């Protein structure tokens, strides 16, 4: 039985509260893949935005940036399992993303 903090008092959950707690935990677990994919798409969008300015008519987008942007766009179709999602979302101890696919190439 999980403990809950109810109006400042720590006590055992009632059957109804336990059921509610279990339901939220189960939903979170069951939803792991879609949640991770959504996070990947969110990171991808940010990375694409960072180089959007290179698509302006007064600048030329280097080929290596074009290739990288296409790789980012293809991430969902090339990564479909939870294990692959975990690899993409892995972080260093300082919190930065570990997978090299997120790093903008320099040349």
């Amino acid at each position, binding site marked *: 039985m999980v403990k809950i903090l109810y*109006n400042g008092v720590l006590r055992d959950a009632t059957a109804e509260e336990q059921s509610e*707690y279990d339901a939220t935990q189960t939903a979170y677990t069951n939803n792991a893949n879609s949640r991770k994919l959504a996070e990947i798409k969110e990171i991808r969008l940010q990375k694409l935005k960072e180089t959007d300015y290179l698509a302006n008519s007064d600048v030329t987008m280097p080929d290596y940036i074009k290739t990288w942007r296409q790789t980012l766009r293809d991430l969902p179709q090339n990564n479909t399992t939870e294990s692959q999602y975990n690899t993409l979302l892995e972080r260093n101890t300082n919190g930065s993303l570990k997978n090299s696919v997120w790093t903008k190439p320099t040349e």
Partner: protein
Amino acid sequence: MSKTTIPTGGITADAINGTLIADDAINSEHYTDASIDTAHIGDNQVTAAKATGVGGLAFISGSSSSSSHGTITLDNIFSSSYRNYIVIGDFTPATNNADIELRFRNSGGTQSDSEYQQHLTRYNADSDSRNTKRHDNVNSFRFSTVGLNNDTARVGLSFHIVLWNPNDSNVRGKIYVNGVGVDNGAQGFQFNGMGQYKGQSAHTGLIFFPASGNFSASNIKVYGVVDS
């Protein structure tokens, strides 16, 4: 003339009236130099009625624990007494990388229908990148924007929330939150943003819960914003 005692009945009712005391007879220093013994002001002597017009925040409820707990429920904190509220606190999940969620409660229990909407923005201390957490028609306010650190010394998330009209069933309850956290990689971040419950309901409370695991510590205070 100096007297150190006054006989019983020596001062009759209303004997010392306004005309006998000059405006500056009791210098303001007596309010600050502790020469007025506060023990003479008993508990509950300064009532809300006497503070009318003062404004500020009225403490409503609080909750604090450093033992493991699965949820934090604060019931009967919203009422017709106040229109708007401030919730300030911090918590740390027991499991690293846990997301924290928030739901309203009313007399029927937790409101877990898909009426929540949000848009939060987060900036990590080690990056200029903006991260967002945007959801519509979901069954909770996804409060933390990123999985939190589980080190109680680092404190997973410290925050304050402004809530508008949570107890008014005629209008939507709205949320503005900002705070400081430490993510699962031990990186500090700041976040802020909006949320609302699109159904109209007289909310009476809140429940915070980790999407996975428990809280290892929490401390939350709720205040009503006094109209004045």
